[in-house]
């Protein structure tokens, strides 16, 4: 295929292809390979500390070595392996399953991947900065703050920054997937009809959008405690003991709330894609559409919603009050009910169909069995009284792994299921089944003894002598589990060359759209524009598309489709029809020159590399080291420059001519992407404001103002800034009006006014801060700065985050002003409107910060 048809991308055999690509299938493969690398990284660490636990005591790794290995293992597996592994499949398959030619924002997708990769590298680099973070994957306060970290703690700071980078990647990915799934579904494809794996990804990204925003807030605050010296998560030290009645009594609980508000949805964020894979495999290998499919979907939706109201069951042993514990016990028990329904749906699907015990099915069935055990043992932890006994023991470790690793088990099934699609080759099925046997044996030998040794304290390398037999068994199990992966890697690697070639669909009864195209699929996925308008998958040629769109652009949709899970009687027929249609069409789809514009971009890689350098520099700036300061400076300039380069690069990814877009038919993709991002930003700011409210309630709401805030902190600077921002918002809408009227002068004048008022806002804030930093009063003889007390920390950090948003807005505004000066936007105010959505949001946030931080 010529370069033109490859969207300007070099061939796959070229290394440069993998740095330049923005194609969803390439990115999917990159995710899969990178996630498997982090599986090995985290797995080797696990084997090391399992060796340590053969006998009680830290005689192999040493105490800090053990703590680092355990903490990093948890962080790597939860963040850098499981979810990215699932999103490797999501990247590759969701566009194929819904009938799109790529994700809505291909470069953003590449940026997500590179940020993910470099965040993992930063995690690895943290080992070389003295010690990495060693306080457990939940990073509880105050052990996550510099005062409680041995040595300089730079490695720990790098871990916090790596997590921020990872979270940024996740947020971009969430925006991208949601926009894609609501704007780029094939004609006739209702949301409820999309294949179950894609549906599971849809609900996963909804949870990610909100949950990771709360984590981002927690991490930004923690990074500020590390780098800027704020005191959100710090206890005061009274001699050698922690003074729990210090000026910030909410510190430790605040972290727990923020972390678990993210952390519990994270369990389902990890598990939902696995559930999707299980459902796909159960359907294909039983030849039966999922029994109670509608109720299965409703259950998933319920779990996604409920996942945000169960987080305090992780805090039953803290000082939160009994009524709230009782409420959260009830919600926790409630969330198990939809899961019961899903489990029974999968079991009945097996019972009603004819099971074929292929490798993917064995892994899916194994995952179901492990999940049932994990689920049942989790009910104990959801009951307050039992949790008092089990919390902080190996019962939690065993339960947690039965749930999370059962998810990973299903994903390995997914790897075996879609490997032929991705590579065009079939692997050795016998070796696959042998791997499953070794894997399942190793898994249970590793984790089941932990239930029996449950009295072992979690994260501690010392345990009672009588439990040694169980720990020894677990260690043997760990190595058996690890060995099973050698079989998998050998099998899959060798099959790349020696495997039999496969056609579009190697699995009988597999009916989702990816099986209707070649293996691997062509760059543009489909040999025409996919449509389900007639109730089955068809590929429309350009003429038909032109006819359908004439007069009603983007119009779509009549007829509904069964897109996955063919029954024993009709599944094969659907496949055959789809495959026949696929092979009958020409492989190359020509719609016009525009679609063949270059989709190669080096900027996502460069932005991420520069971001990595910046964060590495930031990890050490508190030491005043020239090396770290230089890294931060160079990285910052590089990040800004590469972002500018990316903005100026021509990159065209047009909306689909014909697509199903409910419920966002009239919201074009850029606007929907912006709104989705803002929804996430609402949670970010909400978590910052919520943190302020929480620590203030903990301290005493009304005493706060009198005890902790100087009299010099007055209302007027805040009021002036309110006027400035409101006026700037007004000018943005006036710029829109002027652009619509094609008044270049008016557009430029309004944008310049917006910029000037934004700069005025920052200057006013700067003057106010300078004043407060340097006050000398009896209560605050050394000024009122970031570290003075918890009130000053919340004030500077929250308004500082807002100021950073203003600064970003000003950079965009300056760029747009120059473009408007050169004649852009006349007659088309959409770009100004999208910028306005962001700018008005910044305005709205201030409307709450002003009263909370200046009046009340």
């Amino acid at each position, binding site marked *: 295929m010529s370069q033109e048809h490859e969207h300007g991308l070099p061939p796959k055999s070229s290394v440069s292809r993998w740095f330049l690509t923005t194609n969803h299938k390439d990115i999917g493969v990159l995710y899969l390979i990178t996630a498997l690398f982090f599986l090995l990284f985290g797995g080797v660490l696990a084997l090391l500390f399992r060796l340590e636990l053969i006998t009680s005591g830290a005689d192999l790794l040493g105490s800090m070595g053990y703590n680092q290995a355990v903490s990093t293992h948890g962080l790597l597996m939860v963040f850098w392996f499981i979810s990215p592994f699932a999103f490797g499949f999501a990247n590759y398959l969701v566009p194929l399953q819904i009938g799109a030619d790529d994700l809505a924002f291909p470069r953003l997708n590449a940026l997500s991947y590179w940020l993910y990769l470099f965040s993992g590298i930063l995690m690895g680099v943290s080992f070389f900065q003295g010690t990495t973070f060693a306080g457990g994957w939940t990073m509880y306060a105050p052990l996550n703050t510099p005062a409680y970290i041995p040595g300089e703690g730079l490695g720990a700071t790098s871990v916090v920054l790596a997590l921020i980078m990872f979270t940024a990647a996740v947020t971009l990915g969430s925006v991208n997937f949601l926009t894609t799934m609501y704007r780029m579904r094939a004609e006739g494809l209702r949301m409820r009809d999309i294949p179950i794996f894609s549906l599971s990804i849809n609900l996963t990204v909804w949870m990610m959008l*909100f949950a990771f925003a709360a984590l981002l807030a927690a991490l930004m605050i923690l990074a500020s405690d590390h780098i800027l010296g704020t005191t959100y998560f710090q206890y005061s030290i009274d001699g050698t003991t922690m003074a729990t009645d210090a000026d910030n009594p909410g510190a430790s609980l605040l972290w727990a709330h923020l972390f678990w508000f993210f952390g519990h949805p994270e369990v389902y964020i990890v598990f939902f894609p696995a559930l999707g894979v299980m459902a796909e495999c159960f359907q294909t290998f039983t030849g039966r559409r999922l029994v109670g499919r509608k109720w299965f979907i409703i259950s998933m939706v319920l779990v996604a919603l409920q996942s945000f109201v169960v987080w305090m069951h992780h805090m039953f042993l803290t000082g939160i*009050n009994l009524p709230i514990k009782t409420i959260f016990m009830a919600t926790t028990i409630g969330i198990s009910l939809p899961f019961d329904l899903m489990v029974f749906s999968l079991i009945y699907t097996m019972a009603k169909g004819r099971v074929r015990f292929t490798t993917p099915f064995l892994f899916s069935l194994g995952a179901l069995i492990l999940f049932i055990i994990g689920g049942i043992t989790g009910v104990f932890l959801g009951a307050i009284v039992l949790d008092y006994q089990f919390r902080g023991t190996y019962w939690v470790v065993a339960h947690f792994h039965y749930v999370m690793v059962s998810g990973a088990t299903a994903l390995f099934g997914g790897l075996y299921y879609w490997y032929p699609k991705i590579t065009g080759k079939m692997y050795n099925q016998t070796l696959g089944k042998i791997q499953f046997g070794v894997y399942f044996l190793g898994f249970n030998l590793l984790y089941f003894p932990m239930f029996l040794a449950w009295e072992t304290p979690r994260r501690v390398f010392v345990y009672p002598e009588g439990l040694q037999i169980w720990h020894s068994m677990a260690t043997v199990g760990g190595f058996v589990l690890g060995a099973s992966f050698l079989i998998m890697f050998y099998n899959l690697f060798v099959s790349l060359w020696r495997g039999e070639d496969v056609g579009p669909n190697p699995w009988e009864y597999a009916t989702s759209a990816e099986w209707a195209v070649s293996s691997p699929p062509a760059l543009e996925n489909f040999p025409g524009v996919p449509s389900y308008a007639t109730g089955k998958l068809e590929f429309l040629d350009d003429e038909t598309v032109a006819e359908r769109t004439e007069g009603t652009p983007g119009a779509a949709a009549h007829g509904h489709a069964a897109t996955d899970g063919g029954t024993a009687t009709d599944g094969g027929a659907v496949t055959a029809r789809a495959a026949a249609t696929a092979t009958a069409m020409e492989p190359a789809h020509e719609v016009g020159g525009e679609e063949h514009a270059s989709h190669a971009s080096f900027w996502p890689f460069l932005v991420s590399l520069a971001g990595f350098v910046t964060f590495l520099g930031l990890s050490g700036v508190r030491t005043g080291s020239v090396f770290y300061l230089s890294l931060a400076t160079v990285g910052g300039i590089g990040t800004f420059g590469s972002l500018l380069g990316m903005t100026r690069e021509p990159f065209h990814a047009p909306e689909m001519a014909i697509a199903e877009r409910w419920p966002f038919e009239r*919201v074009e993709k850029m606007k929907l992407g912006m709104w989705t991002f803002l929804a996430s930003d609402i949670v970010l700011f*909400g978590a910052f404001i919520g943190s302020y409210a929480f620590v203030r309630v903990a301290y005493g709401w009304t005493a706060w103002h009198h005890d902790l805030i100087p009299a010099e902190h007055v209302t007027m600077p805040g009021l002036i800034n309110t006027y400035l921002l409101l006026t700037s918002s*007004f000018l943005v*809408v006036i710029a829109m009006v002027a652009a619509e009227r094609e008044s270049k002068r008016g557009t430029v004048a309004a944008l310049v006014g917006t910029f000037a008022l934004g700069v005025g806002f920052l200057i006013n804030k700067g003057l106010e801060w300078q004043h407060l930093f340097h006050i000398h009063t009896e209560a605050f003889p050394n000024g009122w700065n970031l570290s003075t007390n918890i009130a000053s920390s919340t004030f500077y950090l929250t308004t500082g985050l807002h100021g950073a948003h203003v600064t970003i807005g000003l950079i965009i505004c300056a760029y747009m002003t120059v473009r408007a000066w050169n004649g852009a936007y006349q007659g088309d105010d959409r770009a100004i409107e999208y910028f306005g959505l962001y700018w008005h949001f910044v305005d*709205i946030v201030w409307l*709450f910060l002003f*009263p909370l931080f200046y*009046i009340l």
Partner: protein
Amino acid sequence: MDWKGYTVIYVVLFAFATAQAVVEFTGLVDSAYWVAFALIMVLSVVKAVGVAAYYQHLRWEPRAVTYLVLGGTVAALALTGAAAYSIL
């Protein structure tokens, strides 16, 4: 919406912001804190809704966009409310 409509909204927002400061200047925050708190926060909510509805054009977008925004808002309020209640 034309520039006149936007201007009316701007004037209302400006007046409400001033009203919030007036609540403080009149001493209500000191004499009846929670009354002042409620008054000021209600004014903030009204202003925020005004900006979102008219400047961000939510009023003219499909309802699904409003639900998207409300989703984020409810999540943030749930976290704040439940967390604060847990230590009362």
